[in-house]
């Protein structure tokens, strides 16, 4: 039995233990992102070049955080999980309280204004915290430390609190991501197929109920827009422009770029800019990197699952929410999925999201290195 953490690092060098199959794709994705962002921002963005430097700085800080986190020992990671979860809950409550005092009856806001950091969506942090903490409960159920009902109740509590808090905020995307994450974790934890089928039918029912009672008007309008393009002029306009911009890239991209006007091209629709500037070749490279990264994460998780289940579940949870972000954002740009305002991880403009994504990467690296160290 090897000793955990830094003890072992003494024997294997940090560089040898690093999982480059995870790290390098993400770095390349961010590089593509910075390249394209620079092109987009340089043509007519007010705060250019400051805004670009900030983004590049966020990538560097994120990388630093990820590398630092990858050094952490597993028990510490356990503690960090609860710290992240707790912090995100506090922030969600803060957002709620903040909102009550600020705006009247037209909907709330899921952003938090933090000193130094700027606006921040605490729900981002909640996703990581949830993946990490609920993984420990899943592990408890796997090894029999927790009875099924105990685990179920703990999970309900763990997920219920942030979901309720987020429901108060107009963040349809986040609630969907969290549910998706939970479903993926339950799936790999090993729910029987017939329960899964039961669950799927339950979800359909829940969807109908949510439509009737939970969703706010503008959230519904987003879904309707997706089902019936043309319902909301602004949204269908976005989609048409997005497709036009992607098309304008052609095989190798357009040197002038920025010819098609797409709203929020620098954040939600950054993928259209990738296509415009780098064409089929660029988007293909980006897609390969993204999906290799996701597959690799799941591979690592499967390898560690019988030995450290919690880490495997954490890995799946984090992969699930990143995958959801990636797929939803890309799918939205090409018109396969509704427009929800989820940015493309590691690419879209936005410093805090970038740092939170790297935080997730750090946890993944830490897990993968735990495996490498025990080979």
């Amino acid at each position, binding site marked *: 039995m090897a000793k955990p953490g830094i003890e072992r690092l003494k024997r294997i060098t940090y560089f040898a233990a690093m999982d480059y199959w995870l790290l390098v794709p993400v770095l390349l994705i961010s590089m593509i992102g910075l390249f394209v962002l620079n092109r987009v921002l340089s043509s007519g963005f007010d705060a250019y070049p400051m805004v670009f430097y900030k983004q590049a700085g966020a990538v560097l800080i994120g990388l630093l955080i990820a590398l630092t986190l990858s050094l952490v020992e*597993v028990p510490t990671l356990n503690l960090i999980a609860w710290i992240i979860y707790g912090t995100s809950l506090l922030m969600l409550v803060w957002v709620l309280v903040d909102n009550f005092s600020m705006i*009247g009856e037209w909907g709330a*806001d899921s952003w938090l204004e933090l000193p130094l950091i700027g606006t921040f969506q605490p729900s981002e942090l909640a996703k990581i915290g949830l993946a990490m903490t609920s993984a420990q409960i899943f592990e408890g159920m796997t090894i029999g430390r927790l009875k099924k009902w105990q685990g179920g109740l703990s999970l309900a509590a763990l997920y219920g609190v942030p979901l309720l808090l987020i429901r108060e905020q107009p963040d349809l995307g986040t609630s969907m991501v969290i549910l998706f994450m939970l479903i993926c974790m339950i799936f*790999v934890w090993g729910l029987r197929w017939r329960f899964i089928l039961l669950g799927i039918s339950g979800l359909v029912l829940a969807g109908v109920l949510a439509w009737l009672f939970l969703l706010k008007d503008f959230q519904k309008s987003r879904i309707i827009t997706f089902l019936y393009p*043309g319902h909301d002029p602004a949204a269908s306009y976005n989609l048409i422009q997005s497709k036009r911009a992607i098309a304008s*890239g052609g095989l190798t991209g357009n040197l002038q770029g920025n010819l098609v006007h797409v709203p929020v091209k620098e954040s939600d629709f950054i993928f259209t800019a990738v296509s415009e500037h780098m064409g089929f070749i660029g988007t293909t490279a980006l897609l390969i990197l993204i999906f290799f990264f996701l597959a690799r994460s799941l591979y690592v998780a499967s390898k560690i699952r019988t030995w450290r*289940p919690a880490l495997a579940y954490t890995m799946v949870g984090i992969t699930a929410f990143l995958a959801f972000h990636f797929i939803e954002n890309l799918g939205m740009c090409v018109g396969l999925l509704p427009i929800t305002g989820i940015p493309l991880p590691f690419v879209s403009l936005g410093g805090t999201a970038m740092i939170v994504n790297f935080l997730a990467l750090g946890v993944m690296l830490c897990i993968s290195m735990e495996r490498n160290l025990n080979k």
Partner: protein
Amino acid sequence: MANEIKTDGFYIFDQPHEGSIKGEEKPSLGKRFRQFLQSRYAVLALIFLLAGALIFYSTAILQLQSSDVSTVAETTGVSRQLTVKAARGDIVDATGLPLAYSIPVNNLMLTYAGLDNEKLNEMLLDLSLFLEENNIDIIENLTDYLVLDHSACTHEEEAGVDCGVPVFAREEIEIIDWQTHRNTFGLEKLSPGQIAGFADRKVKTDPRLFFDYLLYTHYAIENPESDGLRYSREDAFRIMKLRYMIMINWWTFQNGTPIVIATDVSDEIISKINEQNYRFMGVISSREYERAYTSDARTLSHVLGYVGRITSAQYENLRLQGYAADAIIGQAGVEYSAERYLAGQNGIKPYNIWSVAGEEGAFYSESIGKDAISGYNVRLTLDLRLQSAAVASLRRVIEEIRNSPDNKNKGDADAGAVVMLDVRTGEILALASYPDYDPKDFIDQKTVPEAAERVAAYLTDNINKPLWNRAVQEIYAPGSTFKPATAIAGLQSGSITASRNTIRCKGREVIGEWPWRCLEYPNTGHGNLTLSEALATSCNMYFLNLGYTTGINEISYWGSKLGLGEITGIDLPGESRGIRASREVKRVLFSDPGDQIWFPADTCQAAIGQSINSFTIIQLAVYTAALATGKRVTPHTISQITRNDGTVIRSFAVDPEPIDIDEANLLAVRRGMVRSVTDPKGTAYKTLHDFPIKVAAKTGTAETGFEDRSSSNGLFICYAPADNPQVAIAQVVEKGARGSNTILIARDLLTAYFQLVQAPNGDAVLPPGLVDDLQDDHLENNS
């Protein structure tokens, strides 16, 4: 799983699954991969990859199939789209009289058409002359700094052709700042001894030299090398004005945001310009809507609210809901609370402009454009006629109180509020707050300097606070108007009963370790008083005793049941919760531990509506309605949201909530409130005893703690008819000295109300002869 062990709180298995403990043989890559494929992790990976493949396919289709079409179209594309602002919904009163509506305004705008310098200058001059011919003012800023002075010229020959001397319109320091500013010309400051020429980038303090700089260098209107000039000086200056507008908006202009150069342009001119778009290249028009208020709007200022440019904090919140950074949104009143109904949905209009290449570029099919959907209309519960009566009466009574000072009245009454609501539905029939403001000023401030001054005053006047809705946002100590609540608490808790409720007023007494005196008979006392007598005369000793025996917990409990110190849920922004005296609240409210202690005397103070009790007028109205009906209503000002065709989208009727108070106890209190009007000793007798309809009322004079400097606040609550309640009124006059001083406001409102109410068959609800009385009365009041 027998060999699982626990390390540092972590369950781990001492055997890594792959059997890959150091030294052991590792399974081959192929085998490891097969293991992976058999797990559920692979299923998940497969799903993700499938999604990836779909995305790849959709992307590739777009990129590879239609690349030629899109690249060609895009590079010459001068087709753009424009946001068409939706018209804001109308706001009408309960009878359908318009208060707020939207008027269309045509804007003329310049957009980037890719013209070269020479063509652009020609076009701008052409446009400029065309607009001048049609008496349309061009929006420009250059003349803030530079003008052509014709005062010295004779104008004998062709007037204004090539005369006029360039002159700066500002002080030299400002001109230097202007010329050196990064967003304008960015000229360099002169170092000592340097002399600027028209072709260099140095600051030019000579206006003629600066004019030449613009003419030859910066805007290249004339070529310094050619002999003779193309344009007259006035014409060149016309070009400069528009070039300057383009220059200061360059960033957004270049990115396709049009610059507004004229507003409020007639449809006729717009169609002339659109017909000649080959001539006015890059000139487009848009129809926008502006908020407008009728003259009646002023009467409802605090209910209606006003609109204004979205603030950056609001924009952050509303960006995702499709609001633009320059949107005009509701900032107060119903304009604020019904924003989501009033706003409507902006549309998108594609437009084509003639470019140099002469492309007509029918690039967007018309179907991509979307019409703006105008906002829904809001129907208020308020009746303009009652509202006007409330506003006029409130203002007049405040003035009268100010003009008749006495030993208690320092003549300093300056503000007040009154609310009248329907006790059966919670519909607010009138709501006035004084001082008030004119919502129209917020619209006119761009164009009318006086309006701008008034708006500035509204926003900065922290003494009169005209924007402050005193009926909803301000809290007042209720004074004796709280006594019915104390009575209810006493009756419900059993300190007294509906039949046995006599308490003796001795004039002076120590209650709750504190010496008190009856205000009316400090020496002899009122003697034995029943509850209804006590309510009628408002004897403090009775309620001090009653409150003390009942206890603060009961008083606070029943106060909250009656809606005091509770959010009423009114659909106007900024409602205050108020403060209801209780042990807990006092503890929370004060930081000093000595102040946090609840003394027995506090209970006595609270029982007569003092202590820390402070409520909004709207709460007092809800409370009065609750006394009248035994039910708590949700007060509201919006009755319906309707489409333009009149179909109702939403109604805001909320059923009143029954309160658990014994009917006998309510009756006992109501009797007292009626008696304050009918009994000659009653506090409301003087002003209301001859009113043709039976009214139940309670006056209140609330000490503010500043009695050495200013008068006490005068409050009054009532409902009518006493036997079959329809409406409740609550009101305050700040520094009104006595509650009874304010009763006239309620009387005027009741008069106006009962004149309007007719039975379904057309007969008056009032007894015969009464209507005439009321009319006479009304005339008197008006004269």
